[in-house]
Each structure stands twice: as structure tokens, then as C-alpha cells.
């Protein structure tokens, strides 16, 4: 096949190195111009790397599994319930939490760019931004899920959420059956990022 015998000329290091150089030159230019403060750049990277991430979402999920009133609130008004736990900010202003059940499995995508709920999940992983995931999830979600190792019974409906406007989605997985009496901390440890996107069962 042409696409495997002839290597793609453009994915190799030279292009990536070129990108690195171009980005560095842009940063230096914008700093020299006074338009950007390097300290702000450092701070924002550190913020997203340390203060956001899937453990925030896992805490939300674990609490919903542990506290029926919170779960009800979370499903009714995701933005407020999540904000009450301190997870607020860009790309998480308008949150909707969608619950997996015995009959429905939810999966989240953004076909047009890569919208993602930053406060509760951090920045998206590379696969979420890939053309394959963006293109195929809306058309053949079950095939995509099978590539993640998830096989769903035919009777279960797959509900795809394409994040085309300002709402950001978080999947509330089903609580595993063998977790009775576990603390919210122990429950949170079971929750995976993919589980909250919908590309894994928990």
C-alpha cells in the first residue's frame, strides 16, 4: 500500500523540530514586543498541569456515587454542582454531566476543534485531538469504542455528544458493583479519564 510502504514525508523530526523553532521564535518575538509576560506563560502551564486534570473529575464522580443528593444536583445543574467543589474556569463554565446507565453509554467528542472540559479533566490527550477520533466518533462510535477495548451490547444505545457550542460534557460512569462501602477517595481512584470521556467503562 502506498501509505505504508512510502513513509509519510511530513511526520518526521524535521517538521517537528521546525515547529519547535517557529514557536520559540514567536515566543521570543512576543516577549520582546512586550505583548507577553514569560512569567504568565510559566504560570499558566503550571496551573493546567498541576491544578486541573482527571483527578478533579474523578472527585466529582466519586462524590456523585457516594451522595445521591449531590448526584441529583450534578445531573440537574452540572455547572453549579461542579463549581461547588471548586472546579471552575475556562472551558468549564457550562457543564453538563451525562450519566451512563444499563441502557445508555455516553461518549464525548468535538468534531470541529477539540473542546474539552478543562477544569475537571485538564487539557485533552493527543488521541482526543486526532482526526481519527474527531471524524469517526460521530459516525461509527461503536467501532471507535472497540478500538479502546470497549464492546457494548447491541441493546445498549450509544449517545454521542458533539461539543459544538459552549457546553462541555462529563460522563458519569456507572458505579462498579464491587465497591460497596468504599470511601469517596477509594472510589475516585477507580475513575479514569477515558471513563469520563466515554472511551472506557469504569
Amino acid at each position, binding site marked *: 500500500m502506498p501509505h505504508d510502504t512510502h513513509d509519510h514525508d511530513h511526520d518526521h523530526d524535521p517538521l517537528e523540530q521546525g515547529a519547535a523553532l517557529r514557536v520559540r521564535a514567536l515566543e521570543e518575538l512576543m516577549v520582546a514586543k512586550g505583548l507577553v509576560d514569560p512569567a504568565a506563560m510559566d504560570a499558566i502551564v503550571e496551573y493546567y498541569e498541576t491544578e486541573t486534570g482527571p483527578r478533579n473529575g474523578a472527585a466529582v464522580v466519586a462524590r456523585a456515587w457516594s451522595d445521591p443528593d449531590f448526584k441529583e444536583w450534578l445531573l440537574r445543574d452540572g455547572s453549579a454542582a461542579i463549581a461547588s467543589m471548586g472546579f471552575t474556569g475556562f472551558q468549564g463554565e457550562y457543564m453538563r454531566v451525562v450519566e451512563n446507565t444499563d441502557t445508555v453509554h455516553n461518549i464525548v467528542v468535538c468534531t470541529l476543534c477539540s473542546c474539552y472540559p478543562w477544569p475537571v479533566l485538564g*487539557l485533552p490527550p493527543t488521541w482526543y485531538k486526532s482526526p481519527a477520533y474527531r471524524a469517526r466518533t460521530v459516525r461509527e462510535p461503536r467501532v471507535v469504542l472497540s478500538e479502546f477495548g470497549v464492546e457494548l451490547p447491541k441493546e445498549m444505545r450509544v449517545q454521542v455528544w458533539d461539543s459544538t457550542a459552549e457546553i462541555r460534557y462529563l460522563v458519569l460512569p456507572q458505579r462498579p458493583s464491587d465497591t460497596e462501602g468504599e470511601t469517596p477517595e477509594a472510589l475516585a481512584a477507580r475513575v479514569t479519564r477515558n471513563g469520563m470521556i466515554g472511551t472506557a467503562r469504569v
Partner: protein
Amino acid sequence: MDSIHDMGGMQGFGPVPVDAEEVFAHDWQKRAFALTETLGWAVPYGSDEHRQEIERLAPAEYLNRDYFEKWALAAAALARGAGLVSADEVVTGRKSFDVDLAAHPRVSAADLLAASRAGAEMTFPDHPAEPCFAMGDTVRVMVHGPDGHTRAPRYLRGRLGRIERHLGAFQFADALAAGRGPDPQHCYTVIFDAAELWGQGSDTLCADLWEPYLEHP
């Protein structure tokens, strides 16, 4: 604009790289991300303008360039569009003129963090217009694809769905990207049957669509 970024439903991209779990594969990607986030204050620009700029890349470039490099290139293009940097400066990376920093103040670390934690307000609870659609209404997504930035993906154009939720009045991405201000519009979650979209299947799909994208069928 229905360019390559509007890839929902396209085939040919191969398997999902399910093991590519990292957020950043290289340190320079962090810098590109941070540059985009900070430069947006001085220029200024918002997410919709930034997305639009990425979408303006030629399709071959869009597919070949790294995700974060595109972010940085789009940010630089917006700075250039605002007259803050020249094409020559962007190519060489060397400053050749000063800008009016009072009109384009850079954001401090503290302000940027505070804003990132607070988020943006994008709704207009007092929007005077009544919503045109109600829960359960059957709607058709407009066939027309505008030339500018839009958030109605091509795979939904002309398709029938049902109003699943009224989300309230939100700033309108098409208007913001076009420089027409927030132009608040009611926004809805619309649910579609897979068979309507792809001719087969019994699964469902929801998308969030502003009122100007929808019509009574």
C-alpha cells in the same frame, strides 16, 4: 467555513491513536499553548477568533501541522491582523517596531490565573427574544454553510433532529469570530438519530446548535 477542520463523518483517517494519552509530547507545545493563552489578552482575541484563524489554514497544512503549532501560528496571525507584529517579524522572530502597550497591555501571571480560574461569562439571561423552538420540536439544520466561522458541522446540514434541551441565550460564535460582537442567540441541544445522519444504526447523537442554524422543517 466548511474546511478540513469540519471533519465529523470523514473517513480515511485510520485507527484512533488510543495510546497517545499525553497532553504534551514536547516542551515546546506547552510554550505554544501558553503563548496562545497569554497573547489573547494583549491583542486581544477570544476562542472563536482563534479557532477561525486555525480553520483558515490550507487543508494540507491543517492536517500536517502539530495541534499546538497551529495554536501558536493562529495566535501570531491574530497579532499580525491587529497590526502588532509584521509578517517580517513573524518570519524572522526579530522585533522591528514598538507597539502601544498602553492600548495592548500584556496580562500578568496573577490576572491570567484569576481569569482562568473564574472562566468567562457567555450567557445572556435577560435576552429579550423568545426562543423559537420548544422541547421536542422537530428541527432541520440549515443547509446553508456560511463563508465565515460557524459551529454547525457539515454532517448535520439539512438533517432532522429534535430539541432535547433549551440552553438559554449564548454569545454567538459566528458573530464573535466575524467581529460583530456577542449577538446573543438561543442555543439548544438537538438530538439526532444515527439513521438520519448515516442511513443506518440505532444510536443517537446530540449537538449544541444556535437558533440561526435551525429551522422548522
